[in-house]
């Protein structure tokens, strides 16, 4: 059965790293609450939910945003003293998320080269969002390989 772009991205991200908590179609607050992040987890949010509730796949080109995020402070449930030393600096977290995103994107391009053309990505650093996470927000275009 044919899979959608959203399904392909989700599956690819979850396979890339088992420490990833994936979110789609939720606000940031709901994503945080649902993910229950620990310090070694990544929260990856896929955009955009539209009025129809899905990534647009009616056009030949979609614009996809992925927010790759990590806790930038100790989480409340774990031992604060122990985990505080494990928390990287914000700069390290941003670079770590950026590197992971790039590595994932490279793998996704390769695995789905017959199905999608992936454009260049652009990104911004996300620092201390909601007093909870930092990371990297990237946007790239995806077009579908037209079968002749």
């Amino acid at each position: 059965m044919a899979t959608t772009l959203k399904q392909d991205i989700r599956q690819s991200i979850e396979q890339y790293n088992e420490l990833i908590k994936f979110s789609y179609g939720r606000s940031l607050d709901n994503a945080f609450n649902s993910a229950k992040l620990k310090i070694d987890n990544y929260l990856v949010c896929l955009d955009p939910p539209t009025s129809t509730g899905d990534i647009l796949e009616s056009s030949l080109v979609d614009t996809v945003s992925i927010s790759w995020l990590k806790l930038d402070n100790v989480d409340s449930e774990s031992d604060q003293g122990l985990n505080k030393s494990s928390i990287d600096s914000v700069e390290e977290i941003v670079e770590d998320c950026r590197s992971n995103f790039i590595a994932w994107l490279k793998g996704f391009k390769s695995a789905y080269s017959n199905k999608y053309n992936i454009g260049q990505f652009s990104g911004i650093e996300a620092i201390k969002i909601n007093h909870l996470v930092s990371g990297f927000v990237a946007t790239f275009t995806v077009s579908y390989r037209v079968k002749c």
Partner: protein
Amino acid sequence: MLTPAQEILIELFAKQLVKNIGDAIKSKPISRTSVKYENGQRITNDFTAPVNATGKLLRSLRFELTDTSLIIWGEDHAYFLIYGRKPTSGKGSRTVKDEILKWIRAKGIKSEIEDKTLAFLIARKIHREGSSIYIKHKGSNSGLLDSVLTKEIIDDFNSKFTAQLETDLKSEFGN
């Protein structure tokens, strides 16, 4: 509903705005005019100085993001730092004297006169003449926050934010 990427963009924009406002309060020189009386003559003196003194306004700055708006919050008296405090009629407010006392102590102002008496005298001067910002700008904008929300800052935010919306807009109005 805003997407996570849109929320992140707006939060980063809001933080930059709050920082810009804080920087303006801390260090932007605002032109003002002081007034004194010597031998019955009213003497004015133009000067420039940042408005920050006790840091109370700086500490009060925060932002709030709702589904439909971004609100920047701060202490009420920010108004008087932009437009000045005009002369008052009637009895005036004790609050002004109390705030000036805090300002005197925060600025480390030394005088032969006791702090409370000095605060009273300054408050009375403001009551009669208005604040130095008001005397200079006559109730017009002192320019304190002019550089906070420039066209460049708005354009930069718009270009990042509307890129996120582009796909949604296409779906609403048709390709």
